[in-house]
């Protein structure tokens, strides 16, 4: 298998993925036979409705009136000044209903589920943001909602667990494997295998079997489309760089995709460096991993020499995942997007800075993107514009933050 970097000619958005969901050698549908039929049913439904004007209009109506879009592209003036270099702009996904970008995708998939006549919704969640966003749309449209969540994450993200329950969802603790996001995904897949007739699986990131990586990307591309318009409105041109954190990669691909063919815009994905890449205790498959197959797609993975998936470490539950969406794997190989990692410590520092200087409590996930902006902004001239995708707000993380400081709430 050739995984070497090759310069890529032509458009990066046409014919990508191919009909079977391949981005270069990545993506595809690696699932057990029982799921092949429901997945192809979903492929057909998505192919049909993504071009359906009525579907698109309803999706846009919900984004405006239920989610509260467009959210601002906000000039972080004080922080930019302090850093003394490039201007930092924050794309305020934290201001969406439910507090993160995740709702863009769950609204889209719920509308699709409704058209497909599915009444039972399942989802996996790590930080709980996707679980909350799923529980929210299920309440909104009166659908049954079951959310699988690793036992460890249930502890780390207690406020979100309670929010899901308030919204009427059933939260099922997952006790297998490492008890985090990857195991929740396994458990959701197992549920789906057993309930294919009436169940729609709303995957929360741009991974999984085709069409999920494409579908989740498309529903989140509203982020990049708004950045484009708002950047032109505020600065008269496209941004010089866009930075987003990468767990499974949904907020990042949503922000990047509308810019893939604008080669002058640098795109930077930030993975969770945990205790530091050199320690092995991190969640940065693109930075250190190898291509393999997990959760329905071929992509970069964190695995041992025998091909077993290894445990990941990150202060942020939403980035604590050993794989990454296949389009990112491809964009890395062809060199269109640069992938870097920042440590827990750097992300925590950026969190505190953002709170104190800008009056915004960022999600720990988003703080990884902020931390990288802090690193590169000072060396750039003041007329450069960097957009950081502030994928979510940090209210869910206050227990984690308090813990680190030895405070019990």
């Amino acid at each position, binding site marked *: 298998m050739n995984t070497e970097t090759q310069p890529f000619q032509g458009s990066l958005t046409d014919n990508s993925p191919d009909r079977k969901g391949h981005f270069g050698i990545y993506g595809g549908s690696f699932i057990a*036979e029982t799921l092949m039929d429901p997945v192809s049913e979903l492929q057909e439904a998505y192919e049909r409705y993504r071009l359906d004007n009525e579907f698109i209009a309803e999706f846009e109506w919900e984004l405006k009136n239920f989610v509260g879009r467009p959210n601002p592209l906000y000039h972080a003036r004080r922080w930019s000044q302090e850093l003394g270099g490039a201007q930092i702009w924050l794309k305020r996904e934290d201001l969406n209903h439910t507090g993160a970008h995740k709702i863009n995708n769950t609204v889209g998939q719920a509308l699709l589920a409704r058209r497909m006549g599915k009444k039972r919704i399942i989802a996996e969640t790590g930080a709980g943001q996707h679980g909350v966003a799923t529980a929210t749309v299920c309440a909104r449209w009166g659908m049954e909602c079951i959310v699988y969540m690793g036992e460890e994450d249930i502890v780390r993200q207690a406020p979100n667990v309670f929010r899901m329950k308030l919204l009427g969802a059933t939260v099922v603790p997952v006790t297998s494997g490492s008890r985090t996001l990857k195991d929740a995904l396994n458990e959701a897949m197992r549920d789906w295998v057993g309930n294919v007739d009436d169940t729609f699986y709303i995957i929360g990131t741009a991974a999984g079997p085709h069409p999920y990586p494409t579908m989740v990307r498309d529903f989140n591309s509203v982020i990049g489309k708004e950045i484009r318009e708002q950047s032109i409105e505020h600065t008269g041109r496209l941004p010089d760089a866009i930075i987003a954190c990468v767990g499974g990669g949904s907020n990042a691909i949503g922000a990047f995709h509308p810019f893939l063919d604008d080669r002058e815009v640098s795109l930077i994905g930030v993975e969770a460096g945990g205790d530091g890449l050199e320690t092995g205790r991190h969640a940065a498959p693109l930075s250190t991993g190898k291509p393999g197959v997990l959760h329905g797609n071929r992509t970069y993975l964190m695995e041992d020499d025998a*091909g077993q998936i290894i445990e990941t470490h990150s202060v942020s539950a939403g980035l604590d995942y050993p794989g990454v969406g296949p389009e990112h794997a491809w964009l890395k190989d062809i060199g269109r997007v640069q992938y870097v990692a920042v440590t827990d410590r750097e992300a925590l520092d950026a969190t505190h800075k953002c709170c104190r200087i800008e009056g915004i409590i960022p999600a720990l996930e988003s703080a990884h993107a902020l931390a990288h902006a802090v690193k590169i902004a000072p060396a750039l001239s003041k007329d450069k514009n960097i957009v950081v995708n502030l994928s979510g707000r940090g209210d869910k993380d206050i227990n984690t933050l308090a813990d680190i400081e030895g405070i019990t709430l």
Partner: protein
Amino acid sequence: MTRIATCFAQAAGRKLLVPYITAGDPDLDTTLALMHTLVRAGADVIELGVPFSDPMADGPVIQAACERALKHRVTLTQVIDTVKRFRESNQDTAIVLMGYLNPVERLGYARFATLAREAGVDGVLTVDMPPEEAADLVDELRKNDLDSIFLLSPTTPDARLKQVCELATGYIYYVSLKGVTGAANLDTAEVAGKVTHIQSFTDIPVAVGFGIRDARSAAAISQTADAVIVGSALVALIGEHAGNPETMHSTLHDLVNGMRLAMDRSAGAAA
């Protein structure tokens, strides 16, 4: 003729019994000994599970077996090596490696296929690799005379069924229910109808697995299926008796042998 084909050819009306155990649970030496026990109890083919950290298509019983095996880092190459040791004293029982794709990807398709053939493996089933993605691996397996076993399920439409039958060799594994391994909602009448339907598309033997847990269900399924696969029920016994090898072997033997006898009786009654 491959060893799997020979097993079916020599069956002469008798239905094949295919037990599954997870390799390395509780350790590889025990696995090797259990393989011989399974043969003595009437196994024709053994499906040897390659443990994986994320067994998405497996229920809690086989998940737990994978975790037990991985606690001491059992690898795909060690599993292949166990087959080599088994072949030192058994040349007749066919061995199928069943698992997930990633360990095979990591080893490399060509190297995996060569090692497997040299060790005396006969067939390979990777649960999370549907035919659509399988061309490269099937190529390597063919070059090494290894059978490529694929799954069919209650949700497989006829168009795909034909496609799978064209690519599959050895036998077709019909997943008898919509669910993970070890699920309990087996409907034998419905399965019989499906098996007959599949047999109308292909001459490759049809084996049925998932949800078969005792002599009665094995006998019922064997009325139509060419082979009966039993996994979770055995793996549960291995887990339960991990501290007591003697009981482990005897309970496993009795369950498999009970299935064998019930299947033979029901074949006799039908004839």
